[in-house]
């Protein structure tokens, strides 16, 4: 077993138990051994002085695209897991839109074993809802879960059939897993390259109306109500979606939701000058939407922050806007953006942010971690919430560089990430 680690003198934030105090954290045997004052630790323990830093349960990203198998030139499980660790994440959930699709137990097992070989952040596969993400035949949830899948989703290929969504929500209950949905009515969104509004009008680009998302949010809520299933709504981007979720939660519907840093940071104006690094789906929306997403993260209508980390080759983005692929990478900027925008912006306290990036993601997908309770996995992040830094994509561990945040000044970042009691990322190293 690895060497015990003693983190001394940091501000310990553990939202799972309401802990916010200066204390030592002792990790031994891959688990949190104790949190308290003046912990001695074993003689051979690695002692790290983290005074002035924050010690928190490792961040957990419920929405990552790792591109392996199929597009290893963009990202691999190993490079993605390293990028995650550098961003303070001790675990990420990998979406199933790989090639071939992660719709069977062998595919899930492959990702699990690649993640073990990499030995960086944990990687939890998300299985497909339908065979081949084709939206027709239900995938074998039981076998997916048996091999290690923690949720199901057809992600970028939205479930257009309400019947399929209903059966998925019903059947998933056998295994206690959420059904994660990318809410997009394709008949409304088809061919759209950005948010439908004044900017798309000026740029002459086909717009995706907010209604394309909201219609499916409403449908999914209705089906969750009908079935009693747990629907998890991915990357919410509109004020209308926020309002629908708020009302559903008031009624007690089993709905959870995530928001991405780009949606609470940028608006459709980022697409001016046809910057393809601002092209993603759902698209960047209007200021009122951005504000609604921020308020929803503040009041808990949106439960968690997820990255939707989507690597693309620079050639693919170096194209006409209509032809460029959707998506940006996010693992190595998410924490900095969240602290800068939400904590420095006065919307969340640091403990609340840790809850939205660690404790609640663990709870929603029923994952280990998200807590520093004794006996919990020794998945820990040491972060410097005051660090000032500038985003340099060339320094990323991710294999891709597609980010609209290059050159942006951010506050806060991870200094040290520990997974299973082992240091997987150390900024000083």
């Amino acid at each position, binding site marked *: 077993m690895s060497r015990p680690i003693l983190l001394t003198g940091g501000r310990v934030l553990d939202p799972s138990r309401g802990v916010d105090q200066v204390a030592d954290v002792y990790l031994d045997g891959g688990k949190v051994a104790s949190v308290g004052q003046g912990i001695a630790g074993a003689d051979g323990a690695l002692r790290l002085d983290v005074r002035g830093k924050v010690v928190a349960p490792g961040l957990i990203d419920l929405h990552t695209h790792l591109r392996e198998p199929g597009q290893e030139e963009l990202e691999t499980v190993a490079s993605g897991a390293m990028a995650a660790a550098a961003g303070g994440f001790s675990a990420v959930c990998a979406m199933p839109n790989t090639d071939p699709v992660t719709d069977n137990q062998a595919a899930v097992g492959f990702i699990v074993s690649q993640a073990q070989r990499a030995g960086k952040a944990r990687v939890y596969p998300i299985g497909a809802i339908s065979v081949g993400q084709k939206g027709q035949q239900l995938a074998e949830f039981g076998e997916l879960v048996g091999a290690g899948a923690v949720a199901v989703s057809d992600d970028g290929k939205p479930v257009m059939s309400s019947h399929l969504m209903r059966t998925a929500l019903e059947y998933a209950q056998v295994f206690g897993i959420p059904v994660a949905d990318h809410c997009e009515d394709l008949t409304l969104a088809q061919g759209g390259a950005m948010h439908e509004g004044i900017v798309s009008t000026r740029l002459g680009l086909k717009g995706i109306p907010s209604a394309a998302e909201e219609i499916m949010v409403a449908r999914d809520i209705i089906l969750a109500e009908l079935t009693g299933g747990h629907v998890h709504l991915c990357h919410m981007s509109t004020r209308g979606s926020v309002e629908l979720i708020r009302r559903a939660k008031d009624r007690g519907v089993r709905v959870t939701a995530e928001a991405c840093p780009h949606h609470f940071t940028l608006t459709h104006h980022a697409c001016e000058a046809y910057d393809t690094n601002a092209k993603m789906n759902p698209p960047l929306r209007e200021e009122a939407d951005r504000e609604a997403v921020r308020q929803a993260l503040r009041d808990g209508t949106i439960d968690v922050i997820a990255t939707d980390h989507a690597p693309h080759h620079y050639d693919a983005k170096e194209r006409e806007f*209509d032809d460029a692929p959707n998506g940006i990478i996010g693992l190595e900027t998410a924490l900095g953006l969240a602290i800068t925008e939400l904590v420095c912006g006065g919307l969340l306290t640091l403990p609340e942010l840790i809850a939205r990036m660690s404790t609640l993601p663990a709870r929603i997908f029923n994952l280990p971690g998200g807590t520093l309770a004794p006996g919990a996995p020794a998945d820990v992040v040491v972060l410097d919430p005051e660090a000032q830094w500038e985003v340099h994509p060339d320094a990323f561990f991710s294999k891709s560089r597609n980010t609209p945040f290059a050159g942006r000044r951010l506050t806060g970042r991870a200094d040290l990430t520990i997974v299973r009691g082992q240091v997987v990322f150390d900024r000083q190293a």
Partner: protein
Amino acid sequence: MTRSAVLGKDLTGLEPLDADQLRLILDTAEPFKEVSERPIKKVPALRGKTIVNLFFEASTRTRISFEFAEKRLSADTVNVAASGSSVSKGETLVDTARNLEAMRIDMVVIRHGASGAAQFLGDRIRSNVVNAGDGKHEHPTQGLLDLLTLRDRFGKLAGLKVAICGDVLHSRVARSNIWGLTKLGAEVGVCGPPTLLPRDVRELGVTVLPRIEDAIAWADALNILRLQLERMQAGFIPSLREYNRVFGVSRERLARAPKDLLIMHPGPMNRGVEIDSDVADGEHSVILPQVTNGVAVRMAVLYLLAGGSPDWHHPGGDHA
């Protein structure tokens, strides 16, 4: 590369220009009109300059108009059409751009189906880039020739009411007209089926006229857009017949107008769809003068981008 002191490096649209720049182009076009009326239609302004006309979309009028403008300015020109070039073999726009750059050309005139293509090219090569229509974004020289034609007829643009009628949603001509007209003080109305008007179009400073009768009653001039025939298949309108009945500009409708309206159309026309033949060919139509002005404004744009002096009023001279 030349960076024109008055227009910058590229002309990607009319949105980035201010009123003075627009007036300057129109004023510069005035003496160039005369060149096309001479027996020998040539001035040496762009002698020694090489210009590539890069047309990724089919175009007859705009391509020929640019080519005449270039030849009458004595530039050396090459036409590249998307089919039969490396583009049809899958070459990306950025590679096409770099190859043109490597041949040390001075200017590129680009027509492309993707909005933003002209800016994309302009941001990546040192040559001047002129947008000859990019997707649904802008068609600035069309906008300029419409401005020039209106100014010819009315003497000024400030206070003029111009209704842009038809498929505004998919129209680059509409966007360039809206920018150019509003910057020069004209009032702009847009009229068409709500399915073919862009979202939040009022924020561009235009009035929405719900019915063609409203546009005719309101405007001094109608700029009637071409209705792409594929809009019917895409479900934007039920049929061409119904479009003509509800939104077509006919002599009967014009007869009820309080005054005579100037009739414009960027072409190519669908006679009997958005415009009836007797209107297109009628006494108030300036559709052919628009085409004539097209050569003059394109000469002005090319000349100014090449660094030509804006106060030059003798295009036969040797100031280039």
